[in-house]
């Protein structure tokens, strides 16, 4: 019972001491959310392109993320060079992505979504077992590269890990490059056209087969980039792709399937809502319910928050925030 008294001022805990400290708290959690968000965007970008252009549900996208993380962790451990590890992860994923597209997905484009789900789910099992055979069942731990270890004094009295800032920076840079690629180049034009009306692009004499392979390889590279950067933050383990995959699907559904802009906005939204929920929901609940109840309800509700967000957005905009034109 005394706990309830101690935590009675829960709402005040939300705004600790001077207002400056509260601002720092919120800003820091915004950064945490943005960092998670850009990583989700890298995953969701490939997924939404593949779904939007090829009309293919690719559950094995998480496996490409996992492959990126494993190749990066192994290369980094062997060579000590983080940049080499990133390059190796990208190269491996492009090769793997193109290979899967040619061997497996070409037979799936004309099939129903259920067939695609079954086939790509099979791929998940295959790749999870494959990494277990190559790297063993226990998880790998990737070190933060030396030049990004340590922390930066971003706001006074609030050091922030350099690596996480680098992830945000790299993620935003890739998002910008991707935007330029899609909006300003010929291949980007074809991708946009494919997302709007695949049959027409095909009829205009574009080599759709090649375009599909390219888009798939691009999506694979983005997923592997996310995986490689996730290596030092998360544990590198078999099956690590699935939890991210589910969130990436949430992101593309919120953003509007096939829309890169939607994926970007939705990814940041999901990342920030998740971070805010984990940080502030429990103290918020504790302000009007007992400490013990808030301890139980807080983490549970925080983990549901992004799904509640998805449901709310779909209620208002069933096509997502930015549905691509022409559909």
């Amino acid at each position, binding site marked *: 019972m005394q706990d309830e008294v101690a935590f009675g001022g829960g709402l005040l805990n939300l705004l*600790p001491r001077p207002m400056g400290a509260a601002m720092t*708290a919120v800003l820091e959690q915004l950064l945490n959310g943005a960092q998670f968000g850009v990583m989700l965007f890298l995953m969701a970008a490939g997924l939404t392109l593949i779904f939007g252009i090829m009309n293919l549900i690719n559950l094995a996208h998480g496996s490409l993320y996992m492959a990126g993380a494993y190749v990066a962790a192994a290369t980094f451990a062997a060579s000590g060079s983080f940049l080499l590890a990133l390059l190796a992860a990208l190269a491996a994923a492009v090769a793997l992505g193109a290979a899967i597209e040619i061997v497996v997905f070409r037979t799936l484009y004309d099939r129903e979504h259920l067939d695609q789900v079954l086939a790509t789910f099979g791929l998940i099992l295959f790749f999870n077992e494959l990494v277990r055979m190559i790297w063993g069942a226990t998880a790998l*731990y990737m070190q933060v590269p030396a030049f990004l270890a*340590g922390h930066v004094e971003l706001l006074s009295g609030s050091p922030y890990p350099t690596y996480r800032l680098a992830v945000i920076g790299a993620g935003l840079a890739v998002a910008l490059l991707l935007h330029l690629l899609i909006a300003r180049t010929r291949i980007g034009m074809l991708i946009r056209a494919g997302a709007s009306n695949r049959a027409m692009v095909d009829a205009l004499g574009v080599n759709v087969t090649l375009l599909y392979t390219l888009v798939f390889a691009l999506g694979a590279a983005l997923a592997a980039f996310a995986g490689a950067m996730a290596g030092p*933050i998360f544990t590198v*383990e078999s099956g690590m792709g699935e939890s991210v995959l589910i969130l990436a699907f949430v992101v593309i559904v919120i953003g509007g399937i096939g829309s890169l802009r939607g994926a970007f906005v939705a990814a940041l939204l999901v990342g920030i809502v998740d971070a805010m929920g984990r940080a502030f929901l*429990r103290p918020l609940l504790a302000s009007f319910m007992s400490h013990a109840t808030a*301890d139980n309800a807080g*983490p549970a509700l925080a983990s549901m928050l992004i799904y509640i967000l998805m449901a709310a957005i779909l209620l208002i905009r069933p096509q997502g925030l930015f549905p691509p034109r022409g559909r």
Partner: protein
Amino acid sequence: MKSIIAAAAALSLLVAPAVAEQSVKIGFVTTLSGPAGVIGKHMKDASTLALDMLGGKIGGLPATIVYGDDQFKPDVGRQVSEEMLQRDKVDFMTGFIWSNVLLASYQPIIRSGVILIGANAGPHELAGAMCASNYFSASWQNDQTPEAMGKFMNDQKMNDVYLMAPDYAAGKDMVNGFKRYFKGKVAAEVYTKPGQSDYQVEISQIRQAAPKALFIFLPGGMGIQFVKQYAQSGLRDQIPLYSAFTVDETTLPAIGDAAAGNYEVSFWSPDLDNPRNKQFVAAFRAKYHYMPSYYAAQSFDAINMIDAAVKAVKGNLADKQGMIAAIDKADFPSVRGAFKYGPNHFPIENFYLLKIVKDADGEYVRKIQSTIFADHADAYASECKMK
């Protein structure tokens, strides 16, 4: 004709049990995949070593250990346990890292009458209201170890301590145990997702709360991630980190420098000074080339407890009561030294303060600093009404 069949059937009935009782089968449930897979490896290696040192025999009978992977999931653990009981017809069950997995698997094992020896998890339910005569702990009750840390930090007159643990059965036990002996101010209690690997959000919260000290229970991969990220955040020099079941021989190779000088608590340590422990640590290192953890020590003891039980009944595995009585005496060479069982079949044992230091080979190890509790019993024994 009928009489011949009947005679043959009668004969096979006579022979079958005798054949079945020629060997001992032990079911061992642990986590062999994912970030916690390293814990399972310690337990598997130690139990294999224990059986090897007994010449492959339990109580003089040829023995096998059947290993099962619970994947850190209660439903999978229960399924694996039921398979061992029904398909493998095991004579004993042991292992179990996680309290939630043990709680889920407990009832079918206890109902089957098979003797269950918990080699790690010790949820309070099983020490209290749910205790059973055919269940023993080879380790501790969850609350006991953090109680020792609570007492130590209380004796140090620390105040304003921030508590963090995963949101599952053992997490709550750990925090309760800590608070039972820590009388200073608790800054906050935070429960995180079991198996979580990114703690940046929680670290930002800790920075804002600015407590005087931090006490965590994050076993396995969770601890590796948290301790490394905590050091990266730069908070480590400002808010000292104390832990239980977090910085140990399973996680130290991955954590390294980030935990140098940290304090832990345990009922056992590789440097515990008794002949049996020296023999165990030396044999383990010679065979596997790494330092055993308490997970390994408990698993090693569990197999030796089973051996002592089968010896006491002279290989008559049907004599469950005899074996239970034998285990209850704790009359076997334990690596923790001599100890006793409480009325709820949980050990009454010592708890030590440990510090993370570099040994002569430049490796980080846990070293005993002092004894916090001598012959410490758990808080739930009085709730146990054993039938």
